[in-house]
């Protein structure tokens, strides 16, 4: 980035000047991702639990979540404006929908990977079906489910940057601002700051997931 007419040293002044706003947008970005992934987790894990052992049901759920992911994000956000307006709401809805596929797919894969002998033993010892699910099957599938959440989070961090298109929260605001004023004095500073912050958010959240995985995975399941 040593383009003609751009002085890298200027970015420090820019950052110092805008630090408060940058922090706020970064915070918004993280919050909107977390809210969306949590909603998607409830829906995705819930759907996974309901359909993991039903071939038609799980085919249907994965197909639907897969189709959602193929809708271009700009189009999805634009489609939401008439009913949901601008701002946080369409952003959260869109991000939740996009996050669904990795979560629901990994939930189904994880639950199906639990050995039938283990499930049979659990039932034969007198666990109720609910107890088998929550005390045996989900804990064993947990690392796989977490991986789904992690992938969904990365996906959401990236797509959240585009939510600025519907006046959504987050670092996308800077990227869009930069792009819309190309050639102006601070255009590159805005775009660059926005992009780098998004990458940093992704790295930080990923590190957080590695930590959570370490802490919450039974030693008996680690290789």
């Amino acid at each position, binding site marked *: 980035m040593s383009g003609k007419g751009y002085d890298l040293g200027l970015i420090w002044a820019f950052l110092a000047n805008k630090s408060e706003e940058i922090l706020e947008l970064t915070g918004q970005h993280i919050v909107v991702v977390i809210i969306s992934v949590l909603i998607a987790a409830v829906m995705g894990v819930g759907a996974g639990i309901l359909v993991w052992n039903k071939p038609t049901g799980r085919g249907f759920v994965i197909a639907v979540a897969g189709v959602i992911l193929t809708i271009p994000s700009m189009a999805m956000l634009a489609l939401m404006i008439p009913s949901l307006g601008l701002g946080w709401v369409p952003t959260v809805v869109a991000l939740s929908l996009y996050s669904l596929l990795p979560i629901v797919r990994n939930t189904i894969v994880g639950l199906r990977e639990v050995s039938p002998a283990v499930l049979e033993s659990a039932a034969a010892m*007198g666990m109720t079906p609910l107890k088998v699910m929550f005390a045996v099957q989900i804990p*064993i599938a947990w690392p796989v489910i977490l991986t789904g959440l992690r992938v969904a989070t990365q996906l959401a961090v990236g797509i959240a940057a585009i939510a600025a298109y519907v006046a959504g929260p987050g670092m996308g605001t800077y990227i869009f601002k930069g792009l819309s004023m190309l050639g102006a004095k601070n255009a590159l500073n805005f775009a660059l700051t926005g992009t780098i912050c998004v990458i940093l958010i992704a790295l930080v959240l990923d590190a957080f997931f590695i930590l959570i995985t370490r802490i919450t995975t039974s030693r*008996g399941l680690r290789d």
Partner: protein
Amino acid sequence: MIKTTSTSGVGITLENVSKSYNSSAPAAVDNFSMNINPGEFIMLVGPSGCGKTTTMKMINRIIEPTSGKIIIDGQDVLSLNPSFLRRNIGYVIQQIGLFPHMTIAENISVVPNLLGWSKDKTADRVEELLALVELDGGSFARRYPKELSGGQQQRVGVARALAADPPVMLMDEPFGATDPITREKLQLEFLRLQESMHKTIVFVTHDFDEALKLGDRIAVLSAGSQIVQFDTPANILSNPANEYVSSFIGQGAALKSLALIDVAQAKLLPASAATSSPHSVATFDNLRTALDRVVLAGGHPVAVLDEAERVVGAIGIEEISDALGADVRNLSPEKAV
């Protein structure tokens, strides 16, 4: 630490029990009836696919019967809540099915926890059971299943099934996946446990020698879980109902019978008849061991020692053969080959 009192077995009755997995195929279990006495160790033996597992799993309703009645201790199991029913039935399968995310102690605590035992009582029981299956020491309690050998995992499987001291145990080829030496050891240990526990056990195997070694009675099954013969090991060896049963017994019925009879049951020669060979046999050994020693002694009688290692007599080929004849009157020479 080892518990001396435990809940002993209760009777089990299966009445015209059938199971069809799908209506086009013949029933996997066809009209099966059996009466099992309290504390009895029952073996179900038969070829692959004959319906042994299906029959056994209907007792704790892992598989629901298509028709028929199953009564445990006077109660119709089909009228009970399956989860509550199963907490009183120990269950051990070949694949073991330990919970990989739980420690050994947590695995063993599953049923006690379901039954609402206190922490202290459960912890004491875990310690007691680990001692019982010879896994005390070595911090086994805090290890995870993957940190144990196959044989050790199977012991944990047995301990877990015994945790809440159920009167009934269902075992589906529990030792089938272990090597022959480990299997033999596990069999003997389990037999020793059963001597003090007197559980009612339904044990599935396709190893007839295992059935002979462990069972009080053996049910030889054919396709559709049809009972071809249901009798004590000695009676099945001496009186196989038909060719089918004989084919299960295989070669060496006489030798297998000898393994079931103690030296104490044979008429002994006076002690003076023993040769001066260093070989001897104990009263609590079986006649197969006695025969082994006699052969080693060049075919001459060997001394018989009691528990205090005093010579109480001698035993030779003829005494062994007579004991077999007395116990197994109908063992004809050609069957004895």
